[in-house]
């Protein structure tokens, strides 16, 4: 059954049409990678799915419910769909643990004592148990990004969105973050990623979508898309990367 269905999604910033009729279906447990040049609309698409940006046209269905309908409570959606940003966006005045526990406490009404165990387990799972009491500026970029992922996971989301989460990292730190994604993949998390890590997309994705000018120009399993792209533009994009 389709977990997430986008139909004809359009998004405009002023005169600029950023998403021009996006159709996308994501199944339960599927991992979809969005690739494409900067400005092709990948980030905007993710922000629209999370309702951080309202869409101008089209629909987004989550488990068959139209969440893009004006007036639909975005908070309810955001507790079910987590997002991690390129620039981490940790809260600098809180420790890693406080960053993670804020939303469960305020949104889900969890008490700190009932959260302590699960949160610690979460940190432990991603190798950051010893960093729980550190502030973001005491952590490396890779550690900060992992904390940001833990923060999103603490809400027990059904879908995770990742917006170029390794782009701001030094090359030697990329690996530890990708490892987290591998782990999530293995656990069966439904994920949509915007990424420039082609090797990673090729290795793990179920489906790769090539975005260009606000449209999904080509959509295929990675084996197909990376070796035999159908579209001329996809081919040009991939050849520039290699």
């Amino acid at each position, binding site marked *: 059954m389709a977990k997430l269905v986008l139909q004809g999604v359009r998004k405009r910033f002023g005169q600029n049409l950023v998403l021009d009729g996006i159709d996308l279906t994501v199944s339960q447990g599927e991992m979809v990678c969005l690739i494409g040049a900067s400005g092709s609309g990948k980030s905007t698409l993710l922000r629209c799915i999370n309702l*951080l940006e309202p869409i101008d046209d089209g629909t987004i269905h989550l488990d068959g419910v139209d969440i893009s309908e004006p007036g639909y409570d975005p908070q309810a959606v*955001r507790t079910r769909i987590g997002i991690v940003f390129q620039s981490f*966006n940790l809260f*600098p005045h809180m420790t890693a643990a406080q960053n993670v526990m804020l939303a469960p406490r*305020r949104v889900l009404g969890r008490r700190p004592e009932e959260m302590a165990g699960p949160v610690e387990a979460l940190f432990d799972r991603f190798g950051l148990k010893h960093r729980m009491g550190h502030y973001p500026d005491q952590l490396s970029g890779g550690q900060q990004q992992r904390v940001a992922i833990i923060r999103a996971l603490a809400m027990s989301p059904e879908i995770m969105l990742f917006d170029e989460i390794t782009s701001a990292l030094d090359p030697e730190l990329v690996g530890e973050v990708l490892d987290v994604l591998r782990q999530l993949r293995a656990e069966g998390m439904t994920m949509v990623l915007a990424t420039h890590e082609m090797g990673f997309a090729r290795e793990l994705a179920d489906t790769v979508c090539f975005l260009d000018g606000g449209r999904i120009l080509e959509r295929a399993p990675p084996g197909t898309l990376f070796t035999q792209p159908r579209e001329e533009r996809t081919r040009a994009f991939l050849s520039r990367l290699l």
Partner: protein
Amino acid sequence: MPNPDQGGAAALSAAPTRREIHEARLRRRSGAIAAGSTLLVIGAIVLFVPMAPGWEAVRRSFFNAEVFRKTFPGLLEAFLVDVAIFLWCAPAIALLGLVIALCRDVRAPALFPLRLFGALYTDVFRGLPVVLVVYLIGFGVPGLGLPRPWNSPYIWGSLALILVYAAYVAEVIRSGIDSIHVSQRSAAASLGLSEADTMRYVVLPQAIRNVAPANMNLFIALQKDVALLSFIGPVEIFRQAGVYKSLLANFTPYVGAALIFLAITIPATRYADYLLHRQRRRQS
């Protein structure tokens, strides 16, 4: 017997490099120049100012040791009134400033009147001389016929200070709120936090910390402006100095009052500068 290896290592760490020697020499030289020029300026002041024809009269009028001795204890006591007024005004200003800043930041259309009020409020009270507000509220409101003790100049004068300074604090806090990058709000929203929780737990703590030095400067200014309450009756240090001045036909009490103010404001100003410096370093 000393271990030659150890000795070598110690020599390496202890012996200054050529560069260090050079820099130390430069430091000594600029230190000597700074000390020399300072001494020269002070010497010139000490030497030439007393040569001015009116110096004797000025010294008797402004730097009169006898008058100073006689009036300083009374001034110190009067300064306690300033401190008390400051102490009860400061928390009220912080609270009201915060409320006004939040009024100016509300986004819900239904609350537009609040926004309008916040904008009007800050425009009006930042646009008026403090002493004018002290007069208008300090004499005006009690003139409506309030019974004692509710017509006390302490209450209404303090309120005037609170209203004016809250406007400045509100603007400072608002600039702090604006300085928090939109991505912080996005991150909070993406976790499902409400607007109010986002403000309270994510934006405000950072904003207030960012503007702490600016607010500190405002509170230093407040400490000085407390003296304006003297216009409507309270005998705080400025008024007490004025009484002495009138009785003794001598301005030395004002110099005494100035010294007392400086004893408080200079360390406070230095501390604010230190905070600002530390913050700049952290942000860079």
